[in-house]
């Protein structure tokens, strides 16, 4: 009880301070605030992104350009954070051998009338829906620099489609299609693709993740198109890692780390 009182007091004080801080903010969408108009005669950073992104990179979606190119180093380590989360779940939950026998969940009784109805209706719908979901996920990844989307979103949707397989049939069916070895490899490959793009720039005597120089390798018309194509490659790497880690987390959580007879 006492802890709740103290927690409430702490929350109220912190919230009050935050609200007090918000009162100094400029209004939402105010064109004259320093973030939008710049200080003095200097151009602000958002003005730079809005006016120069298309000239620099030939990418219409500014958000993707900022995430994958201008702030590429940041996004790379966001991907590493997701990878680390998946590895942590794996390290904590995954069990093998005798311990797995003890912890494994018994498979539910099936072959009853109700169970068959369930399997037929849900299974049929999922068989129709899952390919569409996966196509949409690939579209989101591949079209991320022209419309909203990108590696994270597409990867999550692709991972969710495998989770849907696991939920509509069972975990074993999903693991037959996307085994443990495959998803761990895919997670590492995604990070390596991203870091590989960065290292490739270093080999061509530029900074890490400075994609413009890759026109020599990608045979594009100029540094702009090289940056655009490199963004696509980087997004594909992010999507690999996120897909694999999402499915890994679900598989380990739902089967208590045994990877058999899960939810």
């Amino acid at each position, binding site marked *: 009880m006492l802890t709740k009182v103290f927690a409430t007091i702490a929350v109220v004080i912190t919230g009050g301070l935050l609200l007090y801080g918000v009162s100094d903010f400029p209004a939402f969408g105010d064109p004259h605030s320093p973030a939008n108009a710049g200080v003095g005669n200097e151009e602000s950073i958002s003005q730079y992104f809005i006016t120069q992104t298309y000239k620099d990179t030939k990418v219409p979606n500014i958000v993707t350009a900022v995430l994958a190119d201008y702030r590429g180093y940041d996004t790379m380590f966001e991907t590493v954070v997701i990878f680390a989360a998946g590895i942590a779940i794996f390290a904590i939950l995954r069990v093998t051998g005798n311990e797995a026998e003890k912890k494994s969940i018994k498979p539910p*009784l099936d072959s009853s*009338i109700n169970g068959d109805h*369930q399997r037929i*209706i*849900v299974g049929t719908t999922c068989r129709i*829906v899952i390919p*569409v979901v996966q196509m949409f996920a690939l579209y989101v990844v591949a079209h991320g620099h022209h419309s909203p989307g990108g590696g994270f979103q597409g990867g999550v949707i692709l991972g969710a489609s495998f989770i849907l397989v696991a939920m509509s049939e069972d975990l074993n069916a999903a693991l037959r299609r996307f085994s443990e070895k495959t998803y761990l490899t895919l997670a590492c490959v995604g990070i390596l693709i991203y870091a590989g793009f960065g290292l490739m720039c270093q080999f061509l005597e530029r900074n890490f993740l400075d994609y413009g120089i890759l026109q020599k390798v990608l045979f594009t018309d100029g540094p702009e198109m090289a940056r655009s194509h490199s963004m696509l490659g980087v997004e594909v790497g992010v999507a690999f890692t996120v897909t694999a880690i999402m499915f890994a987390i679900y598989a380990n959580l739902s089967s208590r780390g045994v990877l058999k007879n899960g939810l």
Partner: protein
Amino acid sequence: MIITIISMALVVGGLVFFLGASTGLIRFPDFYTRMHAAGKGDTLSSLLVLLGFAVYQLKDFQSFSENWLVLLVIVKLLGISAFILLTSPTSTHALMDAGWEDEVEPEIQKGRENHLNDDYPKF
């Protein structure tokens, strides 16, 4: 003008079904009838609202060569409608079935309990 009227009629019809679905969700007595109201009303009303939006898009349509982007939006809306038409009844069915397997008791009229157990045996 006629397009606006049709689309508004579709959207308002959808909202009426939404109202029916939420009323049923509150007023019906047990889990199964509530799911019935929510599932049926939700599917039809979402479809009607989306079709209304799709019809409203035709307002700007003049010729195919100029306004093909409008048709693209309509195709996307129809795709969402097809997706909802497939998935929403399935999810309702899955929830109902989970409730039945979990032995959520339906509210039955006195004297008709045996009737139900004959038709849908529990395991």
